[in-house]
């Protein structure tokens, strides 16, 4: 009798746990791109990213979106130039999608496959390493995405006729909260 009750409980509870959804919300973020020019080394920083992760059946789908206009390099003229070359008015958001196992939050590092939409183009980056630090209900993630201008078919912006380098590594610093 007891075995039947136990089996019945298992049948009820396992699907219930399997179907249990949890969510992650991006609390704080600092995204910064680095541009290298013969006369300047510039960083554009944004704190305006919004993100959400939805977990289902042990897998979490994350979506992060950042307005292109929100990147600030300390010079409005340069930011407008970047906005123009990245077609930021036409494609106002940078979106990043990734899928991670729910257990990734407990790891020290994660390797994520990222799909980034930017400037009307989509680029995929495989196995990008991120450092993970979990503290209470919050998870701190840092890493660098090795983006290039050609990945998004962006003409290199130039100053005094000299173009910037193709590499624009994007440093990511995010704090996620699990709900």
């Amino acid at each position, binding site marked *: 009798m007891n075995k039947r009750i136990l089996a019945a409980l298992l049948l009820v509870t396992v699907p219930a746990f399997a179907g249990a*959804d949890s969510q992650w919300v991006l609390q704080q973020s600092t995204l910064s791109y680095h541009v290298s020019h013969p*006369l*300047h080394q*510039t960083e554009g920083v944004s704190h305006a990213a*919004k*993100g959400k*992760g*939805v*977990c*289902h059946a042990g*897998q979490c*789908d994350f*979506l992060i*979106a950042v*307005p292109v206009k929100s990147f*600030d*390099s*300390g*010079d*409005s*003229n*340069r930011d*407008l*130039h970047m*906005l*123009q070359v990245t*077609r*930021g*008015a*036409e*494609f*106002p*958001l940078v*979106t990043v*999608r*990734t*899928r*991670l196992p729910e257990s990734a939050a407990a790891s020290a590092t994660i390797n*994520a*496959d990222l*799909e980034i*939409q930017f400037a009307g*183009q*989509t680029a*995929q980056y*495989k*196995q990008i390493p991120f450092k993970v630090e979990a503290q209470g209900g919050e998870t701190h993630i840092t890493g660098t995405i090795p983006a*290039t201008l*050609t990945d998004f*078919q962006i*003409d*290199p912006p*130039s*100053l*005094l*006729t*000299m*173009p910037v*380098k*193709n590499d624009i590594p994007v440093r990511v610093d995010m704090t996620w909260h699990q709900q």
Partner: protein
Amino acid sequence: MQDAQESERSRAYYEVEDHGMVATPDHDRDDVEEIIPVNRRGMRQLFWEMNKSSSSGKGTVMLRTYRVLVAHIPHEAMAPSERVRWRMLRKAFRNRRQCCVLGVVFCVCLSVAFAPPLMAQAAGMGALTGKLVDASGHPVANATVTATNIDNGQVRSATTGTDGSYKFEGLPPGNYRLKFEAAGFKTLELPSAAVDGTETALPDEKLEAGETIPANPSPVQQENLPNAPSSSKTEPTLADLGLSPEQTQGNAREQALLDKRTHMLKIHQRMGLITTGPLIATVIASMGAGGKSTSTASRDLHVALGSLTGDLYGITAYYAIRAPRIPGTKKRGPIKFHEAMAWIHGPGMILTPILGAMAFNQKSNGEKVHGIASAHGPVAIVTAGAFGAALLSVSVKF
């Protein structure tokens, strides 16, 4: 000993002169012992070597579209047409050398702003051609070929024609990474293709049939990726992030404004750099124009350079003033200082020639420069200083 070497070189030089050079794409003479492909720079080196050493003059050089085979052929064995070609080639080489010298002078005379493109032209722009075929050798039309300059990241793209051929013209010399994409075929990449000042023909590239990777993968394809976002209903959307429609929707009109603004400011930058040249020259020429022992010619030169500076400055200012403003943009950073300087050098550029004209008249009448006209020099110095500071403020990070 040195004389003996010089004699040997002279003798070798005449031996080379006595031998022949044959220009033909399919030469197969028996007396050709070795074929060494070289580029345009190599051709110059080859000629130089021929003139300084006892080289037997063997080798193959590329000059534009001609493959030139240098062979060890006795002069008397040469056909008359071959002798003509030999002379034409030497003449072409000499002309090219003269053109290079003129090109360098031309570059120096013009401003720094146009230096990179002009130098590229002087060095000779190249071209890249090729053809895409499928596994059965049929041409692949409408394929996208992307050429990325490995050195500076500049990207050019072309589409193949109905015969599968593609061509990139006006490519700066360098190494290029090529990417071939076509619907229904696997993407193919060529890690490196060298382009010099000539037209480089690549061998036919064969595309393998396979799945197309579009720019925006569909959700189904995304799920096929090993660690890609799922297409499940739980996947978050932009609406879930609380973004307003203004933040998510593109604005083509604003993009057009940005494009126009950047275009005009690029011209503004170039013209500003160009103006710097005559501005400095005017300041230098002023040293011989204002003193007691100055000549009319010195003053005329100063006036001419000053007028040129003023005209160029006017064009530069026009492109900055007429560049469209982007609504909702607050000015920050060095651009504020750049614009503040414009409030100094702008009026200065108007005032300086007026005062200069007054000073010029006084000097021409044999008078000492006096009154308000004596402010011409100080005003010009302040104007030039403000112009330089404006230029530096956007060029160098302080």
